[in-house]
């Protein structure tokens, strides 16, 4: 059936709209959702989309280019320079060792040397698109595992350049002379010229980014035509891709470089917000195309071979990554994430496999098997990450607590106040107490922070305040007050429960982040709860009122009225919060009540506590006489 362009667009979009919310609801993440959507609409299941899958994938790969541009723009050059060791070390070793291992195994299985080497190189790469998108979605990109994964992926993008150069050398005797990838300028040049061309292209991007793009951005922005800026942003990324393809470099790498050059630009955020939706859509399309390209007929015809290949490749790659992670001192929990995240084979393998086929390095049958293996391994990655999140991570955060790598400090002081948690909140409380001559025993769970504060001469003990023995050592039996300002709600609740059980005489002053936390603390019987942002927001509101010409004292009083009412209302609401309907109605009532109260203050009468300054009744009386 010949489908119209719009029909196909409709199928893809509809599949996204149906499957992404479903996947999110099931906690699977959007990448897996897209992949599933692709499988469902693909030729194997419903057959809405078929042969154009491969073409769409090539088109949608542009999403990866945009993603790297966006990653680059968030990465300042100095930061990139700091990452040179993991990029070259970790990334370089990963590519070399994995290539060697797979090549060796292929040789042992009887493949000829050129085919083995091609397979080794192809399969050593991981999927930038899937890994970065999944890690970003889980907020893991900034973690040790995320940073290491990013370094490796960046190196792989660089490694593709020599790979493309080596492949023609591996070509079988009767290979067609046609190089599989788009003909590039370098093809017929001697090696040293090729190097010069590559270097030249990089320099062009850096220089043009600094001296051409920045002024142009200013000119375009000044026209105040919104879509022109969008067009220019797209042009920028497309132009980089074209230039890179022309000299035979990876467009993604070029886009990344272009992003880094513009990281300090004042238009950084506009560029980001313009490219972001295109990137999201194209990446989604790309993932769907990967899902649709899995040839289930082939898989079903030889299920064990393909499954065996997928599993053993994933395990092999993961083991190499885990060993490297260990060498590069990533802690065990993060290392497992790192190993699992990069264990699939990347989208670039599709390009390389097509290339090997054209060059007669691998047989057609081999290529289609490997294509299925690559797509399946990509589809499995979000599942692996899910397993890591649900099974492995929870185990670690538990054992982390018990057999923590760092022992709790020994505590040598006893003060009437204990501060549990010395982050930005506890820190201010502690400073305030200190200038008032009140000494406190301070406990904190963030070892970096503890060390940093030590260097500043502040005595902070490292340790988990939810441990009974640690609090006892901190003098909880003789103390009067404990200030609980842990970094997360879970930690806070742990400490509160432990104190309530073991040190009931301690007055607890507890920091809450938001209203749900406050409710939970109320349920635990905590009397003194301090919502992190309440006072500051009100102070800001009062200043805004004053800037509008409202009297300082009036604003001051209204802040206090508002705060008291808000806290009172919260207490009432806590009891009924599980009845959704009643809760919403009551919230509405309370808002109206408060507005009425405040507007009374504004126009007619003072609130009951301020009638003493209202002369209206006196004036009325005087005029009656």
């Amino acid at each position, binding site marked *: 059936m010949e489908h119209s362009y719009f029909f196909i667009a409709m199928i893809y979009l509809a599949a996204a709209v149906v499957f992404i919310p479903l996947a999110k609801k099931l906690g699977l993440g959007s990448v897996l959702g897209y992949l599933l959507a692709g499988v469902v609409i693909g030729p194997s299941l419903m057959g809405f989309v078929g042969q154009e899958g491969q073409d769409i994938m090539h088109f949608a790969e542009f999403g990866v280019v945009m993603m790297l541009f966006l990653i680059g723009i968030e990465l300042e050059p100095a930061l990139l320079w700091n990452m040179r060791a993991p990029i070259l070390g970790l990334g370089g070793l990963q590519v070399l060792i994995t290539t060697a291992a797979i090549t060796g195994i292929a040789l042992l299985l009887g493949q000829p040397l050129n085919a083995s080497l091609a397979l080794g190189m192809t399969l050593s790469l991981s999927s930038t698109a899937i890994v970065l998108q999944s890690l970003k979605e889980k907020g893991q990109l900034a973690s040790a595992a995320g940073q290491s994964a990013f370094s490796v992926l960046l190196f792989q993008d660089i490694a593709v350049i020599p790979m493309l150069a080596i492949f023609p050398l591996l070509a079988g005797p009767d290979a067609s002379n046609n190089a599989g990838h788009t003909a590039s300028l370098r093809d017929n040049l001697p090696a040293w010229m090729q190097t010069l061309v590559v270097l030249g292209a990089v320099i062009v991007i850096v220089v043009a980014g600094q001296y051409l793009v920045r002024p142009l951005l200013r000119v375009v922005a000044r026209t105040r035509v919104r879509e022109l800026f969008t067009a220019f942003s797209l042009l920028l990324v497309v132009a980089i891709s074209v230039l890179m393809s022309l000299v035979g470099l990876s467009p993604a790498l070029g886009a990344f470089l272009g992003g880094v050059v513009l990281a300090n630009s004042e238009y950084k955020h506009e560029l980001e917000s313009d490219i972001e939706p295109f990137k999201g859509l194209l990446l989604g399309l790309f993932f769907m195309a990967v899902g649709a390209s899995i040839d289930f007929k082939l898989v079903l015809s030889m299920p064990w071979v393909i499954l065996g290949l997928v599993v053993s490749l994933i395990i092999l790659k993961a083991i190499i990554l885990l060993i490297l992670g260990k060498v590069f001192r990533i802690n065990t929990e993060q290392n497992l994430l790192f190993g699992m995240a990069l264990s699939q084979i990347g989208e670039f393998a599709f390009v390389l496999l097509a290339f090997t086929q054209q060059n007669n390095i691998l047989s057609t049958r081999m290529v289609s098997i490997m294509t299925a293996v690559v797509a399946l391994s990509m589809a499995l990655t979000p599942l692996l990450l899910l397993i890591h999140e649900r099974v492995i991570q929870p185990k670690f955060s538990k054992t982390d607590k018990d057999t923590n790598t760092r022992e709790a400090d020994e505590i040598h002081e006893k003060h009437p106040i204990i501060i549990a948690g010395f982050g930005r909140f506890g820190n201010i409380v502690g400073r305030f107490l200190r200038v008032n001559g009140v000494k406190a025993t301070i406990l904190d769970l963030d070892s970096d922070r503890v060390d940093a504060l030590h260097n500043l001469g502040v005595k902070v003990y490292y340790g988990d305040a939810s441990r009974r023995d640690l609090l006892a050592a901190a003098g909880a039996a003789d103390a009067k007050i404990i200030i609980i300002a842990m970094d997360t709600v879970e930690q806070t609740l742990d400490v509160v429960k432990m104190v309530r059980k073991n040190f009931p005489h301690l007055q607890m002053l507890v920091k809450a982040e938001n209203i749900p936390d406050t409710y939970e603390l109320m349920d635990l019987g905590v009397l003194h709860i301090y919502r992190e942002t309440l006072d500051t927001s009100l102070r800001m509101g009062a200043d805004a009122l004053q800037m509008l010409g*409202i009297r*300082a*004292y009036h604003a001051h009083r209204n802040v206090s009225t508002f705060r008291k009412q808000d806290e009172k209302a919260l207490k009432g609401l806590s009891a009924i919060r599980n009845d959704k309907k009643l809760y919403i109605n009551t919230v509405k009532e309370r808002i109206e009540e408060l507005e009425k109260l405040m507007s009374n203050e504004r126009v007619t009468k003072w609130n009951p506590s301020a009638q003493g*300054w209202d002369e209206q009744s006196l004036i009325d009386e*005087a005029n009656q006489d």
Partner: protein
Amino acid sequence: MAKILILFAHPAFEKSRVHSQLLAAIRGMQGVTLHDLYEVYPDMGIDVRHEQSLLLQHDIILFQHPLYWYSAPALIKQWQDLVLEHGWAYGHTGTALRGKIAGSVVTAGAQETAYGREGWHHYSVSEFLLPFRQTALLCNMQYLEPFVIYGTHRLTYSGIAEQAVSYKQMLERLRDGQLKIK
């Protein structure tokens, strides 16, 4: 030309009919510093050193406020309690304010007749302000007869405007040394 400091206190100035006009009339007068206490210290956190240096820079100190319960709004009391320190304003070494002049500018809701022996309130405004007088004397200052605007509950807009003009004239004469001080 003497320098006048007006320590103004009104907790609900946004509703004021009389004091808003009085201030409008005298704002920007040469030699007159208007210090709006409730605006500067809405949380009653008075900056004592700043207040003392202000006092030192002026010759005549006037408390301007509505009469609440025969006295001043709370912030004035807080100001007195904190700023007029022993050893600075009074006591053996407390000579900072010596020779300066103090006075009160107050508004009262009732008519002048109510502030007599036969009236509602039995005592005169001057008598009610006895603590201000004695405070000034203890600080080695002269205390002026209070400038009182009576009957504000019945004053019309134009009535208030007349009072504002005479207030301004009083300040001018005070500033220029034309007002006889006992």
